């Protein structure tokens, strides 16, 4: 919490001391601060969702916002996701900038029709006369020991849908900036939040200039092989890279994709041209997915550079399993390294 925010709120909700040097915040808190900043900046920003008001959301991402901004700007909505997105579209037409929370990834499907048929297409259909500045926040992915439908990774459905932009944050700094950039853009943005990483902490420098929303980013430089990943897998892959460096002396480059549609693959191509090897890591089932798209494009763009086929390490093409099995289901450090070995062993 820095002075900037401290000034407008006497008691920072993260309990830190106002006026101090930047302290560490979690991804959850960074999102909360980002939402608050966006709401302070623009009175047209409103939040909509189930239990986001009084309760502050089941993950507390909207904690305290209804109290401070009122019930008309933080709406506890009826239990109907098609309603949330459908009404958000209408509010956007009216000049609002709705930020919808879908409580869990598996509950976005009742809203699928409104997202695909209206939200994604209205800008095109109206030849730009109707803008759709709507953000849909989706806590996504597994790893929290939840019951069915609470651990899905549906991002590929939206990446396949023309007219939507899709992003995923992986750390507090990105979370803070990306949510504000998404809200500021005049486009519909599916905003995926790595729910099992909500409690990861990092220092938040509010004076820094954020990287553009639709750009990927090299988080670790290396020449042995490249790993492209996003969301919750970024931490896993960074740890894998550390481990590979320590144990095997491998020098892995790790790229956080950040933008899933459109993809920003330039840094990946550049990297693969150096390393000759790419591993794509994602929790989602691999079939006809974003990971497939990356493989398809990289094999085209880097055909002569690739020394091994692009290797995908993903969730299996099965329903998400009962949670006692999720450690097996989710690509972990070992499976990422195994994929790297596959690539190196080609």
């Amino acid at each position, binding site marked *: 919490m820095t002075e900037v925010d401290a000034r407008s709120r006497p008691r920072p909700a993260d309990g830190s001391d106002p006026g101090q040097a930047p302290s560490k915040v979690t991804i959850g808190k960074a999102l909360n601060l980002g939402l608050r900043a966006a709401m302070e900046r623009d009175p047209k920003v*409103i939040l909509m969702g189930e239990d986001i008001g009084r309760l502050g959301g089941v993950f507390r991402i909207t904690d305290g916002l209804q109290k401070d901004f009122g019930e*008309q700007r933080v709406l506890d*909505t*009826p239990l*109907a996701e*098609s*309603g949330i*997105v*459908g*009404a*958000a*579209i*209408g*509010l*956007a*037409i*009216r*000049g*609002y900038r709705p930020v919808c929370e879908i409580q869990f990834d598996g509950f976005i499907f*009742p809203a699928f*029709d*409104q997202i695909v*048929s*209206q939200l994604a297409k*209205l*800008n*095109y*259909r*109206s*030849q*730009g*006369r*109707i*803008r*759709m*500045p709507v953000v849909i926040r989706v806590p996504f992915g597994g790893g929290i020991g939840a019951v069915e439908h609470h651990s899905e990774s549906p991002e590929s459905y939206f990446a396949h849908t*023309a*007219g939507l*932009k899709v992003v995923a944050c992986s750390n507090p700094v990105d979370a803070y900036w990306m949510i504000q950039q998404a809200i500021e*853009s*005049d*486009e519909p943005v599916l905003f995926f939040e790595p729910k099992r990483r909500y409690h990861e902490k990092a220092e938040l420098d509010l004076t820094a200039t954020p990287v553009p929303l*639709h750009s990927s980013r090299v988080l670790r430089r290396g020449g042995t092989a490249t790993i492209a990943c996003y969301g919750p897998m970024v931490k896993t892959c960074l740890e894998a890279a550390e481990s590979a460096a320590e144990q095997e002396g491998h020098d892995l480059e790790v790229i956080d994709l950040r933008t899933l*549609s*459109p*993809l*920003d693959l330039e840094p990946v191509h550049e990297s693969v041209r150096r390393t000759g090897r790419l591993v794509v890591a994602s929790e989602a089932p691999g079939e006809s997915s974003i990971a497939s798209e990356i493989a398809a494009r990289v094999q085209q763009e880097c055909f002569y550079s690739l020394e091994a086929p692009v290797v995908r390490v993903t969730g299996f093409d099965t329903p998400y399993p009962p949670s006692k099995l999720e450690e097996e289901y989710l690509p972990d450090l070992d499976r990422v390294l195994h994929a790297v070995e596959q690539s190196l062993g080609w």
Partner: protein
Amino acid sequence: MQLLTPEGERVAHPHFDIDITPDELRGLYRDMVLVRRADRESNALQRQGQLGIWVPLLGQEAAQIGAGRAMRPRDMAFPSYREHGVAWCRGIDPTELLGIFRGTDHGSWDPMATRFHPYTIVIGNQCLNAVGYAMGQRFDGRIGDGHDSADAEATVVFFGDGATSQGDVNEAFVWGAVYDAPVVFFCQNNQWAISEPMERQSRIPLYQRASGYGFPGIRVDGNDVLATLAVTRWALEECRSGNGPVLIEAFTYRMDAHTTSDDPSRYRLADELEAWKLKDPIERVKAYLHRQQWADGDYFAEVERESDALAARLREYCQRMPVPSADRMFSEVYANGSSAVSAQRDEFLTYLSQFEQTGGER
């Protein structure tokens, strides 16, 4: 609810009566004749191969003109795909509808300036969008006692009898009610959803659906422009003063096929059509205008001439409509563009230019 019988006789109603001047009624008559003519002409254009498909409004003129004329400029309309009459009332020229059906665009009017949303084809979607818009009207302070009523606003959303079965429409009822949204749910029950009669959608009359959600529902003779006008005005006033939503079931009839691709002889009897012809929405107004001596032969002839001119203009316009250039495919996919789409556009336009250079046929 009826104010004008099929025979053109004026009947009184304790709650919903309306004062109408000769001028106003002539205007409504003219509206109906012109939109019917535009509809018939567009239908003919489809038959001549000028349009890929047409969605006729024939028979629903009174419902649409009554509702459309009840709206004020500030009010917002969310149509389905058959609301050519409402479009007319929002100041949209019938030529602007043609692109959708010719395949040159998805509607060429400005939805913000006309306060007429693009046609929505996925059944029911627009009902939630309309409720959201109406919530915004309320959030903006455009309704309620405190507000100058000239500034007050409301929203009307149009949908069919078949649409009442869609989840989205029913969710819209929930949201409208919970947020006291100033929205009039205007259901044109034209008795058919393509080949399916009303009984496949509901056991009971549709206006009663509202009672399950706690707001008023009313059935009006949708072939009676006066009754529809009166009821919609009342409903809008309810909304503008903060008592929304309201459901109106305009009981009417789809006198033509569902679309030009449809063949109603496969599923409904000609008798039914004949019976409804006797309740024609235009004839009864004409009879009443005659009877009241509010219009004479000259007036009717003048409207006829005007509609001939409109038809001619439509015909001419349609044949001259340009095919959009290929780059339209890639424009306005996103407000801020997309690297991926731009790359595809560039690649495709380069590919196309090969053919131009070689003069080759594709």
